[in-house]
């Protein structure tokens, strides 16, 4: 089920297997039949670690969603709660346990905290008087979840908000712990680079934790050569821009959740011959998207404008392969053909799916609205008229376009202008409050706190300098056969990835000035390796860097890193880790505050 995790440069299946082993061990601790009560948020990430079959093998017979009231009846010996350590969930659990006791007394209760147990939560259970009801209280350390052969995510939704708005560094602690786990499996990472306050904090905790484990030396040959920690607030611009890769657009338009996307069903109706498509499916079509699917792996990171050509090329290859059957004369040849059939059929249905998705997306990308929006984004990124109120934004507000779209654009303008003139900023804010409602004053306040929206303080706008030095805008981006990462945004090269690229060659020393303009410190740390573990590099062997985005990363950025890995002369392969896979919309959403109104 997870073979695609082991194809990459770093076998991430090791991590998955370690996680599965731990899960099995916990389940076996609770002898007898079991029912799992899920914190709903966890089911997605868990699905990537273990399917239902694994749970079933360990006598899990029922699964419920955690909700208040009484637990559904189930004839099982054990009830196990799989929850995040959150106080509000503890209250629900307490309620469950209370209403349970009267009816069944023979069921055993257990709690598995993901990713870490918390004294605060246990205290809460104690106050509620149910702590004693639990036979096992354990933690399931699931910090970094493998999403693909080169991608790890913590799926910690509120990480950016907590770090930058609320000064709550819980997610960073989990990050550091996750990196320690990773190092336990893949060896100590000798070099650590970072940029940003959170990066500094994570590196400090890692070094500290390493000291705590002093003496238990890690004897694994390091798989990663370098770790690069990047704060999301070093590059606030990139997630705001509309992603233009295939996968990025799927995420922008339909949203990818834990590797799955739900699509409108109409285009996927089975068209069988002779049968009129009388009953169209109404349920959204759910598709899993990862590199296990050969075609998807091939096109996911392409600029959408290059996807059509790739699909038609593929179509030709597949139909040519099917045509082969006419050439198969001997029994041996026919047998050979038949043996390839399943693979070919899978390829054909994969092609059909992606052709449908591409059509869906194309309808949107060719619309005038999409074009206008993109034009404005690109104007901002190239620094055109970023200091005035933008007519397009004004019109969009007047048309009452979705608020998040407006916020994305306004924030983008602010970032590209290193803050907006007070007058311009106030104008936008007033427009937003008057049109979408006063309650959004809290959201605006959050955006200002997070630095996405700000009044211009210094007289100089340093964005053009940054843009020029890092070559963030490439006029002649080649979408079909890219030669630079800027293809992922059809011209804009994501700042975060430029920093990564420059770090590999020629090094950050060449861009000291720009680094100073970006928020937070930049640093370099070395971790001593036990003698004998120093890698002897083969000639031409690539180095491996783990890039950790604190606060989220977009699919387009991932595509850009994959592009760098594949570049022949880069000499560097990248593995990507993040607190959460984001896009502009989900990211802004996580920063919004909406007081619930009592008035009708």
């Amino acid at each position: 089920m997870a073979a695609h995790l082991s194809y990459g440069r770093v076998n991430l299946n090791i991590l998955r297997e370690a996680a599965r082993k731990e899960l099995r061990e916990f389940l076996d601790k609770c002898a007898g039949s079991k029912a799992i009560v899920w914190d709903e948020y966890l089911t997605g990430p868990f699905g990537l670690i273990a399917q239902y079959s694994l749970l079933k093998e360990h006598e899990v017979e029922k699964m419920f969603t955690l909700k208040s009231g009484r637990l559904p009846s189930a004839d099982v010996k054990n009830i196990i709660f799989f929850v995040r350590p959150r106080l509000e969930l503890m209250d629900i659990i307490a309620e469950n346990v209370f209403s349970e006791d009267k009816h069944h007394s023979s069921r055993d209760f257990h709690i598995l905290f993901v990713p870490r147990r918390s004294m605060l939560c246990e205290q809460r259970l104690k106050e509620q008087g149910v702590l004693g009801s639990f036979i096992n209280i354990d933690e399931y350390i699931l910090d970094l979840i493998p999403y693909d052969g080169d991608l790890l995510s913590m799926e910690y939704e509120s990480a950016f908000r907590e770090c930058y708005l609320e000064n709550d560094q819980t997610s960073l602690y989990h990050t550091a712990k996750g990196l320690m786990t990773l190092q336990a499996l893949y060896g100590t990472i000798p070099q650590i680079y970072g940029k940003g306050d959170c990066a500094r904090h994570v590196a400090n905790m890692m070094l500290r934790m390493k000291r705590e484990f002093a003496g238990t030396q890690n004897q694994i040959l390091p798989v990663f050569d370098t770790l690069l920690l990047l704060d999301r607030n070093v590059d606030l611009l990139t997630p705001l821009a509309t992603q233009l890769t295939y996968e990025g657009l799927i995420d922008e338009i339909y949203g990818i959740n834990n590797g799955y996307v739900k699509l409108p069903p109409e285009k996927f109706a089975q068209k069988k011959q002779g049968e009129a498509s009388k009953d169209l499916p109404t349920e959204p079509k759910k598709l899993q998207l990862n590199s296990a699917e050969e075609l998807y792996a091939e096109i996911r990171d392409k600029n959408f404008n290059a996807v059509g050509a790739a699909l038609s090329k593929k179509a030709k290859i597949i139909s040519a392969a099917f045509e082969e059957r006419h050439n198969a004369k001997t029994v041996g040849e026919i047998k050979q053909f038949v043996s390839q059939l399943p693979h070919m059929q899978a390829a054909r249905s994969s092609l059909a799916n992606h052709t449908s998705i591409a059509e869906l997306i194309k309808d949107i990308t060719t619309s005038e609205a999409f074009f206008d929006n993109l034009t404005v984004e690109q104007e901002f990124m190239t620094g055109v008229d970023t200091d005035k109120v933008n007519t397009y934004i004004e019109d969009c507000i007047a048309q009452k376009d979705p608020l998040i779209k407006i916020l994305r654009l306004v924030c983008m303008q602010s970032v590209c202008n290193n803050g907006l003139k007070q007058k311009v900023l106030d104008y936008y804010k007033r427009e937003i409050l008057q049109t979408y409602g006063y309650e959004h004053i809290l959201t605006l306040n959050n955006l200002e706190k997070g630095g996405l929206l700000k009044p211009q303080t210094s007289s100089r706008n340093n964005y053009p300098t940054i843009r020029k030095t890092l070559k963030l805008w490439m006029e002649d981006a080649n979408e079909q056969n890219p030669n630079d990462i800027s293809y992922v945004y059809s011209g804009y090269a994501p700042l975060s990835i430029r920093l990564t690229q420059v770090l590999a060659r020629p090094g950050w020393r060449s861009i000291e000035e720009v680094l100073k303009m970006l928020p937070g410190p930049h640093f370099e740390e070395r971790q001593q390796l036990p003698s004998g573990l120093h890698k002897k590099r083969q000639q031409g062997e690539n180095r491996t860097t783990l890039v950790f985005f604190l606060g989220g990363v977009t699919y387009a950025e991932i595509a850009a890193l994959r592009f760098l890995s594949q570049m022949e002369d880069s000499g560097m392969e990248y593995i990507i880790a993040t607190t959460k896979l984001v896009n502009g919309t989900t990211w802004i959403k996580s920063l919004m505050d909406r007081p619930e109104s009592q008035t009708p």
Partner: protein
Amino acid sequence: MAFITANWNPLGEAFYRKTELYEMCWTLRDGLRDSLVAAAPYGGPIALLREPLRRSPSSRPQLEIYSASGVGIASFPWKSGPVVQLGWTVSDELLCIQEDGSVLIYDLFGSFKRHFSMGQEVVQTQVLEAKVFHSPYGTGVAIVTGSSRFTLATNIDDLKLRRLPEVPGLQGKPSCWVVLTQDRQTKVLLSNGLDLYIVDNTSCTAVVPPGLSPQAGSVVHMSVSFSYKYLALFTDSGHLWTGTSNLQEKLSEVDTKKTTTPRQMVWCRRPKSQQPSVVLMWDRLLLVAGVCNDTIQFPLEDPCVLIGELDGVRIISSTNQELLQEVPLVCQDIFKIASMAPGALLLEAHREYEKLSQKADEYLREIKEQSMLGEAVKQCVEAAGHEYDTNTQKSLMRAASFGKCFLTDFSPDQFVSTCRELRVLNSVRESSVGLPLTHAQFKQMTVQVLIDRLVYRQFYPLAIEICRYLKIPDYQGVSRVLKHWASCKVQQKDLSDEAIARAVCVKVGDSPGVSYSDIAARAYECGRTELAIKLLDFEARSGEQVPLLLKMKRSQLALCKAVESGDTDLVYTVVSYLKNEMNRGDFFMTLRNQPVALSLYRQFCKLQEQETLKDLYNQDDDHQELANYYVTASYKEKRLESRLSLLQSAVDEYNKAKNEFAAKATEDEMRLLRFQRKLDDEKGAGLLGLSLQATMEALLALGLHKQAEQLYRDFRVPDKRYWWLKLKSLAEKEEWEELEKFSKSKKSPIGYLAFVEVCMKCNNKYEAKKYVSKVTPEQKVKAHLAVSDLEGAADAAIERRNEAEMGAVLSRCSASDRLVIDRLNRARAGAAKK
């Protein structure tokens, strides 16, 4: 060397030897007479209590503790009641069983640890006799009371007293008794007159040893072997019966011709021994009796004490200590006179070699001819392990090493490990250390336990050296020793906190597996809080520091450390602790000094305690957040008045925060709310809570143009937005006349293409066309296209000579529009020429 067999005594097939272990270091004024003596096996310590039953309060008996070699460890006057029995636990703790049934436990250094009682009734009936025994469960105590009842505790660390059933006809104490451990059950075997009984938990059964001669008489002494496998019974007629302890099998019966009861009787055997034998001791005689009729007799000059070991018997007198054991077979093979065993020949060969004699070669040839060289080496190595004398060890090992030279592919493992182990054994056997362990005992005990015992006796340097020498991983070796050392060091009363902390830090450093917090906890237990805090400072894992700091009520420091660790859960824990411990003012002040903790607490309050959140913002004069707080709160209010008053508070705070924009926006919102309320009351418009835009939209939909207009002016809505709003609203309501009027009211700030498009959206091409002419030149083509007027679009495009626009028009043309297409193509060609 030649005399190595000088102390060998034959008994049946086997030989017994008595080896001197120590000349005792102690000077006992009255020898061992009239003393209660307890010595632990495995070379354990010796406890001595002189005249234990002397009751005069004026002269208290002295309790003395010595190492096995007689080095004094502790000595103190016995102040408690009369002692019946002394004994050692498996973990080297001293048990003193008093007449009243209480058992006092002391450590090796004579400090009192704890006590327990063998039952309340014993206080009255008194303990007549007591025994300390070892079982797989740990150390146990058995007593017989004045009412002739037995009470057992099989494990003193998990005390469960068991009173055994009554023994028929028993008055006072039995003539003799032992504790047996069989089939995981602990039983007592006792003799009363001519009868033998086995008493277990539930019953008392009379038993008869198989094959005991009828004339033997009654049993007056009995002894069970180290492994509880064998039993020896001595009768008043001098018969010694030996057999298995389950009384199923007899081994032998020997008539010792002694009619007095021996003082002590102990089994003397070794694993794999040829024959089991028993050592009996009278006042002036030591006698070894085996399965044959022979006995070995040693005269005794002094009162002695016998200690049964795994592989022999230690004999302690006031002057020296000896080990009596069966000579191991391999030693017999090598040292027996005229032995031709390969090991013996090898030893001889080496001896000749050292004398530079060619005989060495002859011996070697002889062994090699029989292909026994490997065996010979093995024998020498094994024998060396059994020897106590270092010279003998050396000559055997040298012979082995010599023999090894002539062997290819011979595994050196055993040779190397024996060398190492012998060095360790020799060092712990040193009189100053005093652990006279044999190789077999050492193997049984394991090196881990040996290190524990050394640590317990505070031989830290030796323990560390052994760990390093045997290359024991730090975790189980050196670190463990250092941990013990440090825990002991912190109890040293004569040193300052500073000095101790420094000493600990220097020694322990960063040793893996040593937890400074454990050491600190120990210091805290001893009442040295300051020292504990100093030690905690060295702890690398902040998570470990916190619980202890909280326990010591150093909560501020605990908070610091929790914050340092980065573990937010830990911070929460300390914060919630502080919240309960401190008054509110102090609590807030403490948080104020720890921004990380403060923000976490704020998070907590946001979810759980809104009111506290307000207080926190108030305290920090954080007006901005306070204002936000009021805004949030206002939405929870149902009544408009309360909502407005909260918003007013928000306005005040925004003003204090110098956030003019927000203050103004909030005032606007209040104004809007009042307006909405008024209109709702007057017209039932249902506006309350809508945004300004939505309000205007609703007003227009209701046809309340005047009121909408009023809002537009009052709230200074930009023209553009208002025009859009009105345009859409009118079109939707299909008020086309009104729309046209509106379009002419002044120059449209949003242009006229919008009018065209909106009309088209409402499917009114006729109205749409009205506005096409008003559109700016740049938008002309678009406008014409919007109303599907291709010709008009083409005209406009050609007029503007704009190629892109021409293309756009072309793309909309179908085949039937031949004329237009031709015109456009011509125009394009013309444009291209230029």
